[in-house]
């Protein structure tokens, strides 16, 4: 299998970039304590049956991991602008191995982000069985696939100066419409739009606490649909992107 060393060095250099690392983990954490802290004794947020610390833990974990996934695009855009992507194209590194390295790096960052938020949640009294924690984590990881594809697509489409606002804007909008900052209720325009967004289903991962399936069939279909669409886009943009930037 090619590209193992490549993946290892990609991980190494991502975790070595301390400022990037600290900011990626720090922001969701601070926001979590600001939002969930004052409501830590709310045991059923907006009548959902889910406590505020748990709801916002999943919400901010979604926010943090969405950012982690899309930030892979920022690193790709930078690598393209300095000619590194072209340099890689004249090596035997296959597109598959290249995507795998980018994905694994983004997921590694996302996992650290999730762990930090879980620890913060525990300090505010979130407690579930081990099975529920694992189930929630699994849903978050699956729900992130479309964001990984979106990050790679944006990275091969935009320049380093335009990708910052693109990532910031996408994450803010998707987090807002996904219910990261407040529950969207069970009806109304926002709720109806949210049903079709992958970020909504990420935040819904907190519903594992209620028992039963956290995601409806619609949830799985929405995630699968976005994954297919955005992966196709990412591959297409990668193939097209051979020129000098």
């Amino acid at each position: 299998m090619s590209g193992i060393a490549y993946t290892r060095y990609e991980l190494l250099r991502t975790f070595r970039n301390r400022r990037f690392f600290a900011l990626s983990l720090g922001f969701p954490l601070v926001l979590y304590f600001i939002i969930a802290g004052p409501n830590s004794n709310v045991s059923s947020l907006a009548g959902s049956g889910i406590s505020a610390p748990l709801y916002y833990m999943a919400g901010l974990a979604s926010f943090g991991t969405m950012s982690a996934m899309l930030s892979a695009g920022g690193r790709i855009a930078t690598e393209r602008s300095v000619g590194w992507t072209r340099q890689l194209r004249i090596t035997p590194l296959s597109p598959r191995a290249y995507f795998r390295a980018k994905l694994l790096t983004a997921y590694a960052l996302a996992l650290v982000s999730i762990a930090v938020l879980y620890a913060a949640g525990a300090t505010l009294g979130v407690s579930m069985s081990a099975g529920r924690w694992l189930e929630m984590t699994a849903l978050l990881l699956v729900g992130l696939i479309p964001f990984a594809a979106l990050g790679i697509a944006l990275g091969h489409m935009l320049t380093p100066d335009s990708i910052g606002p693109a990532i910031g804007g996408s994450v803010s909008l998707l987090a807002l419409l996904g219910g990261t900052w407040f529950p969207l209720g069970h009806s109304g325009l926002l709720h109806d739009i949210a049903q079709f967004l992958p970020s909504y289903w990420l935040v819904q991962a907190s519903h594992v606490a209620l028992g039963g399936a956290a995601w409806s069939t619609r949830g799985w279909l929405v995630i699968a649909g976005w994954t297919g669409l955005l992966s196709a886009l990412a591959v297409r943009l990668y193939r097209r992107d051979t020129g000098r930037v």
Partner: protein
Amino acid sequence: MSEPRIALRGVAKSFAGPRGPIRAVRGVDIEIARGETAALLGSNGAGKSTTIDLLLGLLAPDEGSVSVFGRTPAQAVAEGAVGAMLQNGELIRDLSVRELVSMVAALYPAPMAVAELLALTGIAGFAEQRTQKLSGGQTQRVRFALALAPDPELLVLDEPTAAMDVEGRHAFWRTMRELAARGRTLLFATHYLEEADANADRVVLMAQGEVVADAPPSRIRAMVGARTIRATLPGVELAPLQALAGVSGAERRGATVVLACADSDIAIRALLERFPEARDIEIAVAGLEQAFLTLTGAGDGA
């Protein structure tokens, strides 16, 4: 056994431009034999970088074919037969020089040993430095090491010395000669005639997307190294100047005349004999730009 040469045959490539397509490469034929060191000489916009991108498979030709030792560029790259240093590249950050070189070397099936790469390119002294702390010249040397990492049969370098200091250049060409002695095929693009002259067996001269000359450096030098004589010489007709021995053309710019010379030694003697009043005399090499214009015919009547 693979074909012992690199061949571009009838290769053309256009790009979309704001005012219609830009024909960057217009039907180029280039053959380079295994073990040869060839220079791709031309000014900016001559089509050198596009030709190199086509050779490396970074671009697909609109017309014509590209073969690297009998293989497609993609096959040659996948087998680690080709190493390249592209124009104006930088390095990715947050790795040491040694780590970066190791990372790239690990991508190839039969790479050169990392220690040998570091020594050969003179970067062992700063191998533990992070890539973002390097000077421009050091960065170029690391990029050279990355190009050598596959231990390639063919090494392609696009203006490799552009960001190097004098010392770096000497070390670079020394290494290149060593590689040539090991039987590697080398192709480098440059816009300096001196560099092509000093380091290549053969010079392929490009202008406006076409190969305008393909010859040993001495012949290229003779072709493009024509000299001009400038002198202040008011009130003299052009016809007698054009008729002077060694002069191939004459033009007037105010009080100054400019003589294009086939042989400037003969021409200067003839000029001073016939027009002893000529003063402020300068003899200069016409330069590549002028030579390109002459060779491509674009300079006719100028």
